[in-house]
Structure formats: structure tokens, C-alpha cells
């Protein structure tokens, strides 16, 4: 069938009219047009030969894709609990007030809309905001908000806003291996070449390196399975979808240590026999894209990417960057692969695991940014050296993204086995009530437990370390996390789709003052249900913060209850207001509390 020329033909051609480029295509079009109109989706569907409903389904899945006009300026306030602790909610209200905006609605003149978004990974220099899914504003203050409103009214493009606003600091407070002196570009590859693929793999196994993304799977085993999987094509994927609220270490590694990350990916390509590597960069880190591409380009010119790397004939490997579009669940490796393939980021049924059938159904190893960094250091310094750091079950170091109530937020790298109390001392935390280790899906540690140690055998972590002092209401912390999970649930399975929403509704009821111990009991039951029955880890972890805070900070819940016993979910006296109006009564006998 002949097709009329469409408005995006050049863009689609650049992507080879490939359906698996759909997310990238939609992202680029939205960057030009600020939203995805029905006509746009039709044109894309027709250009790629996809059903329109499929394209609508993909567009509707990602939080950064807008099916409605959002205005010339879309301001998204980062909504992690650390942003809230810095006053982000009040600042968002203030900006809306200044711009005469209603929540989540575009102004009638099409100028601006203001909403919130999940953690943008700037917790150590927040509150933060994301403008038009590209520009970052850090360290928001009421002053900056007033200035921002004026700039928006004067239609100053975000690229011309004060440069100081988009300053993002690494804030490396304590460096060990991965944040310390980096190997010269190519040193890791040379060491791997000298050992050969199996030799490098054996050394990686000796290092006992485990994945830094949270699950802690043995990297050597994963690579071995991928290498063993029979196929002409293998892929290496770097999971840079750093979505766990409170985590920002990968942002720094990609900002200042990209060479080490790409070198680790190249070594992976050498070991598993892949010629192509893909970086899945979360949409919130779009601002890093140009610099990362420049590093890739330089490495090509240095003979560290491309064909015959370091002169080794037959060792070809190159890296491409995909940018996400706002979906926490895509941090799960099979959902990430679905997203790379241009689909809704719903986790796959496993097995088969990605190492057997991953990207485009080919064997794929997906590893975290920090894991690839570790690989480069191991290649240079040997697996035995790495295994000598940390504990027998958790070798090497771990980078912690420290934020919240402390004097010196930022990155801290420690060998595994470090006491939580030690990290609190180093970052200048005082009068600490609790630490959320590993983000909302991790563990909430109370003061009694500060002697526990970081490691897979005690307190595992994907890297977040959020500190709460005694002025904080741990119920509010848990509410923020509950809202996060409901917002990020992919909607695929019943227990997570409905359960996360039920949790938020119960928490809201408690917050409104209508809760009772019965509600806490229901929350407890929902936690139990979701822990066993969800399709993926997001749903399973969604109640972790609830369980921990209910168990360890029950008074924080009880102070939100009218009565420890039954209380109705509504205000009975307020319900009588219509009857009072109809009867024209307002005497003491018409009010429940004064009824004789």
C-alpha cells in the first residue's frame, strides 16, 4: 500500500523505520512539539506500520509522554521525600499561585503547566525540578521560584535561565576505589585482552563481584550464562535507569567516570561475545546525553570502540544510548529490554532470562552502571585484589547516595561491611531517627539498628541512604513512598495495580484523621499479599516501607488515628449538613457532638 508522505518521515528514516525504536522516536518528536497529539501518533503508527492502538499504548505508558498539551513550559517538581523535606510542596504551590495555575492543568494561554515527578536523582542538592523533560533546576528556593515565574511570563527559554540554576555538583565526600583514581582509558581493555575472554571471566568470578543494582546477582555467573547461550548475536546493556528514589550515584559515575563505565561495557562485550552495547539512560538524565555521546565519540577515535579495538582483529564493539521516558519499572531488567524494544515497559515472564533471550530475543547481559565501573577496576587490578576488599559474601566497595538530614550530603564509598552508624557519623547526621537504606524498596533502619552493616548478608542496598532526624514524621515518609509506588506501578498485575492504590487510599484516610487500628491491620494484610503474589519485584517491594515503619514507628501511625479502635471513613456530623440545611436547623440537637 502506498502511503502519503508524513510529517516525520525524515526522523523515522533516521531510525530505520524500526518499530523497536518507537520510544526513541516518540521522545524526539515530543522534544520538538512538547506533546504527542492524536495526529502525531497516527502519523508515527502509519510510518512504522504499527497499529495505532499499539502506539497509543506505548505513549500512554511512559510518564514523560504527554497525550494532552502541557504548554510551552512543563515544570515538574521532583517529588522524593527529600525534596518534600526541603519544602518542594510549598514551592510548587507558590509557583502555581504566581502563574495563576490549577494543579496538573495547562494555563489557558498554553504557556505553562506545573506537576510533580518521581525522584530526579538530585536529592543531595534539591529540591529539584525538571523543565520540559530536559533542563534541570537544582537547589530551589522561594527566591528562585519567584524568578522562575517571571522568566516564564517573559518567555525566556530555559537554556537562557541563570546557569547557576542548572549546576549539578558531584559532591564526592568519600572516595575509595570506584570514586578514586581511575585507570587510564584502555588499561582495562588491554588487561582483558591479555587474559582472553575466558581468562577475564574466570578472574571476574574470583572477584566474587555481585550486581550493584540491588539484586546482587553474581556478575561472573550472569556473563558466563550469556556467553554460553548459543547465538550469533549477543548484547551488553548498561542499566542507567537509576529510578530508585534517593539514589544518584550513577548520575555522578556517568558525569565524571563515563570512561570507566564504557570500558566495563566493552570488557563485557569481549567476554560474552557481543558487538553492541546499549546504555538505557533514564529520561531524567537527558541532560547528560550530549556529554556521554562526546565520550563515546572520543573513545572511537582512540580505538577503544568500533572495529578491531586496540588492534585486536575481530574484537568489534560499539555503544548506543537509549533515553527512557519516565518509568521506574524499567529499572527491572526485562522491563528495560521491553522498553529498549520500543514497547510498554512491562516485566517479562521469566524464564527465559535475558541472558538466554533478551534484547530482540538474543542473549543479553544487563548490568548496573556501578557494576561496569567495578569490572574495569577488576580488569586492571585483578579479581583477587577486589575479593580482598569488603566481606567474604560481599566483596569490594559500595557507593552510597547520602541525602536528607545531614550536614554533608553526597557520595560516600565504603568497603562492604561498613557500619551504618559510621556512615551517619561521616556525613554529619545528628539526632537521627531512621535511615532508609536502598530507597523505598529497601529497608528502614531505626536508631536501635545503627550497628548493622551494609552488605548482602545484613543490609543490602542499591545505593540510596536517606537520613531522617527526630523532627520528621515517619508516617509522612511512608506516605511519600506509597504514593511513589502507586504512581510507578505498571498496572500489569492485579495485586500491584490495585494494591498500591489501596495502600495510598488507606494512608490518605489516616492522614485525614479518619484512620483506626483496623486500617493499619489492612495495610499489614496488603503488604503480606503483595509480597508473594505480584508479577515482579516492584509490587513485592512496594509495601517494604510500610511494613518497616508500622513495625518500628507505630506511634507515628497512631498519632494520625482518631481512636485506636473503630472510626468511620467519613465525618458523620458533616454528613448531616445537608439535612440541617433542608430543615433549617442548626441548634445543638442537630449536631452529633451536642446531641443530648
Amino acid at each position, binding site marked *: 500500500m502506498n502511503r502519503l508522505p508524513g510529517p516525520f518521515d525524515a526522523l523515522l528514516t533516521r531510525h530505520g523505520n524500526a518499530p523497536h525504536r518507537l520510544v526513541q522516536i516518540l521522545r524526539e518528536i515530543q522534544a520538538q512539539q512538547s506533546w504527542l497529539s492524536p495526529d502525531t501518533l497516527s502519523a508515527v503508527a502509519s510510518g512504522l506500520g504499527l497499529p495505532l492502538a499499539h502506539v497509543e499504548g506505548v505513549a500512554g505508558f511512559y510518564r514523560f509522554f504527554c497525550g494532552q498539551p502541557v504548554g510551552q513550559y512543563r515544570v515538574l517538581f521532583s517529588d522524593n521525600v527529600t525534596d518534600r523535606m526541603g519544602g518542594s510542596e510549598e514551592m510548587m504551590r507558590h509557583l502555581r499561585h504566581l502563574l495563576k495555575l490549577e494543579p496538573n492543568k495547562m494555563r489557558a494561554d498554553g504557556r505553562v503547566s506545573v506537576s510533580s515527578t518521581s525522584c530526579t536523582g538530585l536529592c543531595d542538592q534539591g529540591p529539584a525540578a525538571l523543565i520540559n523533560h530536559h533542563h534541570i533546576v537544582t537547589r530551589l528556593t522561594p527566591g528562585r521560584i519567584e524568578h522562575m515565574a517571571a522568566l516564564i511570563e517573559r518567555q525566556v527559554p530555559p537554556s537562557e535561565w541563570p546557569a547557576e540554576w542548572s549546576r549539578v555538583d558531584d559532591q564526592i565526600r568519600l572516595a575509595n576505589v570506584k570514586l578514586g583514581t581511575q585507570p587510564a582509558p584502555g588499561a582495562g581493555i588491554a588487561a582483558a585482552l591479555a587474559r582472553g575472554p575466558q581468562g577475564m571471566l574466570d578472574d571476574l568470578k574470583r572477584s566474587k563481584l555481585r550486581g550493584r543494582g540491588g539484586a546482587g546477582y553474581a556478575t561472573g555467573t550472569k556473563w558466563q550464562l550469556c556467553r554460553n547461550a548459543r547465538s550469533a548475536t549477543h548484547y551488553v546493556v548498561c542499566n542507567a535507569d537509576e529510578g530508585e528514589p534517593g539514589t544518584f550515584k550513577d548520575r555522578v559515575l556517568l558525569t565524571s567516570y563515563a570512561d570507566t563505565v564504557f570500558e566495563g561495557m566493552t570488557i563485557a562485550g569481549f567476554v560474552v561475545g557481543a558487538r553492541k552495547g546499549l546504555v538505557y539512560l533514564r529520561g531524567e538524565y537527558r541532560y547528560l546525553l550530549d556529554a556521554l555521546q562526546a565520550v563515546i565519540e572520543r573513545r572511537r577515535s582512540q580505538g577503544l570502540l568500533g572495529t578491531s579495538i586496540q588492534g585486536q582483529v575481530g574484537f568489534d564493539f560499539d555503544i548506543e544510548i537509549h533515553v527512557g521516558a519516565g518509568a521506574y519499572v524499567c529499572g527491572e531488567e526485562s522491563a528495560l529490554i521491553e522498553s529498549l524494544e520500543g514497547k510498554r515497559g512491562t516485566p517479562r515472564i521469566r524464564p527465559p532470562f535475558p541472558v538466554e533471550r533478551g534484547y530482540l530475543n538474543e542473549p543479553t547481559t544487563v548490568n548496573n552502571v556501578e557494576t561496569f565501573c567495578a569490572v574495569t577496576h577488576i580488569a586492571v587490578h585483578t579479581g583477587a585484589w577486589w575479593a580482598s576488599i569488603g566481606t567474604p559474601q560481599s566483596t569490594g566497595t559500595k557507593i552510597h547516595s547520602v541525602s536528607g538530614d545531614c550536614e554533608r550530603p553526597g557520595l560516600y564509598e565504603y568497603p562492604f561491611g561498613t557500619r551504618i552508624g559510621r556512615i551517619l557519623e561521616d556525613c554529619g547526621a545528628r539526632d537521627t531517627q531512621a535511615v532508609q537504606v536502598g530507597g523505598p524498596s529497601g529497608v528502614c533502619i531505626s536508631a536501635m539498628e545503627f550497628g548493622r552493616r551494609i552488605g548482602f548478608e545484613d543490609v543490602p542496598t542499591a545505593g540510596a541512604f536517606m537520613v531522617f532526624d527526630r523532627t520528621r514524621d515517619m508516617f509522612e515518609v511512608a506516605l511519600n513512598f506509597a504514593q511513589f509506588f502507586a504512581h510507578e506501578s505498571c*498496572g500489569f498485575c492485579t495485586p500491584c495495580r490495585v494494591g498500591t492504590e489501596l495502600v495510598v487510599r488507606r494512608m490518605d484516610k489516616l492522614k485525614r484523621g479518619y484512620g483506626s487500628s483496623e486500617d493499619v491491620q489492612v495495610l499489614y494484610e496488603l503488604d503480606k499479599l503483595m509480597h508473594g503474589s505480584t508479577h515482579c519485584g516492584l509490587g513485592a517491594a512496594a509495601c517494604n516501607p510500610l511494613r518497616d515503619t508500622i513495625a518500628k514507628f507505630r506511634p507515628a501511625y497512631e498519632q494520625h488515628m482518631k481512636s485506636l479502635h473503630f472510626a468511620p471513613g467519613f465525618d458523620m456530623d458533616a454528613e448531616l449538613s445537608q439535612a440541617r440545611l433542608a430543615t433549617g436547623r442548626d441548634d445543638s440537637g442537630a449536631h452529633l457532638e451536642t446531641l443530648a
Partner: protein
Amino acid sequence: MSTNDRIDALSPGTFMLDGEEIDFGPGESILEAATRTGHYIPHLCWHPEFGAKGSCRLCTVRINGRIGAACTVQAASGQEVQNNTDELNALRKTLLQMIFIEGNHFCPSCEKSGNCRLQATAYDIGMEGPHFEEFYPERRVDASHPDLLLDLNRCILCSLCVRASHDVDRKDVFAIGGHGIHTHLLINSPNGLMADSALQASDRAANVCPVGAILHKRVGFATPIGKRKFDTLAVSEQVEETKP
């Protein structure tokens, strides 16, 4: 995952379902093997003609003590599968209550009553009420099609119509849209209406809905209430026929 698991999964064998020995064929899931041998494991998003989806989670069982969805877990020799236990039926009842409260399911006014797998499964499991507060979402009804009615109030997102339209009809009339609690069914047509889609009453996709979301017009009460599929025999007593 170990290499051995895969070899097991690809060869026939037997596993134990609630103490009874079940034969399975190469590559069969626990649910497939159970159904083929006439054993009931509750399910809504699974259908013997279509591949596993794993989204409703009603077929959750314990396999060697570990929880998993029977439709997605491959049968393997020596598995001890618990299915009809108080613990799992309580979990299923909660999942059913969740499905009821997230949509608008008013059985007495629904012409699918008695033929509805959701209603039948809820009766069978002993669900007596919603337990949770109902969400009462605002959802669309699409009566545009001459022969078919789409009532999204009753859609349970099993995606059987999506798969039937893709796998059997080759029309891709349906897709899943949105995310989280706002996940919903999409119609592939320029204006989103069923009348302008390629759907026909004879399509597999128009005849696979387990609930009253996709209905045929003018036949709603051809079979009177009381004489319908699940009125006469509980869902657990009517295990689907599967192709050999």
C-alpha cells in the same frame, strides 16, 4: 536458574498437585498440565488457546513452598504443588475483591451474569463482599458497533481479546494503554470507537471475554438467568477442554 531446570522443563514427567500425580508434556506450564488432566486451578487471564500472561495472579500456587503463578511456571519433575489450600484461596479471594472494587461490577444488572467467569470464580471461592472500599471509576461504554457492545466498567484487563485479535484474527483491534490504576483497554480505530475498528462479531476476539465487557447485542437474555453456564455447575467443576 540452572541448566538442569531447563532440561527438566523440556522433557515430560510428573509432578504432584495437592498430593495427586499429574503427567506433563514438554514445555507445559503447571496450569496447562493441570487443566489438560481435568484439574481446576482458578484463573481469569489464562485460556487454553492462548499463551501465558501472568497478570491476574489468580492461579497463584505454591511450588516446593515458593509462590508462583501456575500459568507462567513450567512443570518440572518432582515439583510439589499446593493449589487448593486455605492460604491460597484466601489470597485469591483478596485478588478477586481487588478486581471487583477497581471496576464497576454490578452482577444483578449485567447480562453476562451466570456466564461470567469473574462472578463464578468469586462464588466458588466464597467471596461474600468487596471488603475494600469501591473505587467507582468513570469508564466508557461504547455501543457504536452494530453487533457488539463494549462496557469498560467490567473490563478486568485479562488481555484475552488483545491476544485473540493478534494471534487468531490477525487484526490487532485491541491493545493495553495507560499505566498503574489507570491501565485500560484501547480500541484500534482512528477515533477509538469500536464501530470504526476492524472487529466483527465472528472474530475470536469478540467471543473470548470472560466477563461482560465485550457483549453481543440482541442475545443477552436468549438463555434465561438460572440456566446459564455457571448457574448449573460451579466453575471448579467445569475444567476447560484442551486440545490434545
